[in-house]
């Protein structure tokens, strides 16, 4: 579904990611793991076409990502930012319903939309908060609203930048389970630092070393203690790594 061909990423002439080639397909749940400042967010934004790559080396369904219109892209890709900007006042339900925009821009009657919005609210356990103003929510609740919004967008590709941030432990498991289920019919790509969830829920992983070199493949083959040690440059000690 997504094909990345020999992509180089740089910010202000500093090369972050070197010569990355990847093929990502429907039915896969990808995790991207790397240390801070390696360019994970830049990579996600490049895949989604928010940051133009020149010449574009990212193809979605055989078409250059830069050739998609803003609206077409929103139908294909939903994107969760690491930090959502603070906007003007808005209720929870309203915010979640905005995820439907790419599908009903030209439609007057949105009655069949309510089901998807309610499903997203339910999945993120937000029904009781749906009429509350976003300004009155906690950080974790806001995160749930942002995730519910991209759930209601219901696009084939979901890209999530550290979706687990701010969520409590129980809800992290809930979300990972939900994403795993969704990935049967979609392609899901997420950046995370919580590698303990990757082994259990993700199907594929891309690890990027501090020198910008990426290795990728199935979780079972790539997520080894040795790779974690060499690529992330951390000593795999403690409970988390016992499973590796």
């Amino acid at each position, binding site marked *: 579904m997504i094909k990345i061909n020999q992509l180089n990423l740089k910010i202000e002439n500093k090369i972050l990611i070197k010569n990355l080639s990847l093929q990502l397909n429907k039915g896969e749940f990808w995790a991207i793991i790397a240390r801070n400042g390696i360019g994970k967010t830049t990579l996600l934004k490049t895949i989604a076409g928010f940051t133009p790559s020149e010449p574009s080396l990212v193809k979605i369904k055989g078409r250059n990502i830069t050739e998609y219109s*803003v609206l077409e892209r929103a139908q294909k890709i939903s994107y969760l930012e690491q930090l959502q900007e603070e906007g003007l006042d808005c209720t929870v339900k*309203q915010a979640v319903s905005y995820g439907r925009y790419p599908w009903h821009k030209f439609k007057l009657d949105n009655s069949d939309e309510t089901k998807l919005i309610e499903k997203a609210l339910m999945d993120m356990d937000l029904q009781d908060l749906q009429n509350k103003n976003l300004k009155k929510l906690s950080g974790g609740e806001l995160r749930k609203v942002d995730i519910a919004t991209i759930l209601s967008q219901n696009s084939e590709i979901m890209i999530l930048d550290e979706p687990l941030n701010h969520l409590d432990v129980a809800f992290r498991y809930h979300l990972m389970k939900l994403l795993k289920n969704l990935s049967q019919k979609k392609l899901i790509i997420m950046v995370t630092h919580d590698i303990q969830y990757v082994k259990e829920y993700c199907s594929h992983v891309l690890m990027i070393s501090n020198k910008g070199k990426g290795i990728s493949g199935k979780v079972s083959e790539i997520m080894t203690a040795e790779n974690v040690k060499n690529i992330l440059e951390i000593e795999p000690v403690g409970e988390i790594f016992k499973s590796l």
Partner: protein
Amino acid sequence: MRQYIALLLLLLVTIIFSLTTGSISIPLAEMFSEKYHTIIFEIRIPRMANAIIVGALLSVSGLMIQNLVKNPLADPYILGVSGASAMVQLLLIAFGIVLPFSLFMLTGFMATLLALLLLLLISSKKSLNSTNLLLSGVVLAFAYSAIISLILTLSPTATTKPILFWLMGDLGYSSFSLFPIIALIIGSLWIFQYHKELDLLARGEFFALKCGVNVRKTNLVLLVSASLFTAVAVSLAGTIGFVGLVIPHISRLIFGNKHAKLIPASIILGATLVLLADTLSRWLFAPTQLPVGIFTALFGVPVFLYLLRKNS
């Protein structure tokens, strides 16, 4: 729906109040009699129409500007674009150049467009970013306002008073013209079709972009139409303060934050406020007329503070 009917009734009452009140009071029953025909049709109705148009245009413009720069304290004058039009029109007044009213408006309009181009050139290197826009706009506004002060200081005393009135907002100088009415109708219909995009943009620019809104195009539409709306309002009545800042907030407090509701609500509320303020400015110290801007503020502040308290 009930809220809209209430608002429209309020506007209607204000219209009747405005037509019957002034330096000469007209009994309601004799409003359309032969005796008062000239006052009603040649003086009060044109002035009323202008007040309604100015109020509506300023409010919608404020609604759009606040959305554009993501700042609840923004008003239609904040980007300085209308300041340029005020500056040019004041130069005309100060030099005693009397143009036909439509030409006078056209001059303001051209100044607005030029100022808009200047603002875009300065603020948008790559994209239309709200912080850049706000900063460049505010700085340019200071420059125009400095020139306005300069004109004011250098002009002879005889022209100072009309200029001061104009700066505070005054409907006494404008005459009736069809153009502003057409601008209001076409402009608000034009902007109404962007109501969904406005909703999403209020959540944030990247948010709107990722949900499929063509942010660059929508921002440009907002900027251009808000500037032109303000330019029309300024050429009709000078720079009436407060309306464009506070009416969008009052509308939000009553109607929530969907622009499909906010746009019509702002139009009706803005029209009512300016019409009421103008009527009071003509009437309270008659035959002396006061600048309308004084009353928009005196009226708007308590209403706004009340609603704010009630809602928090």
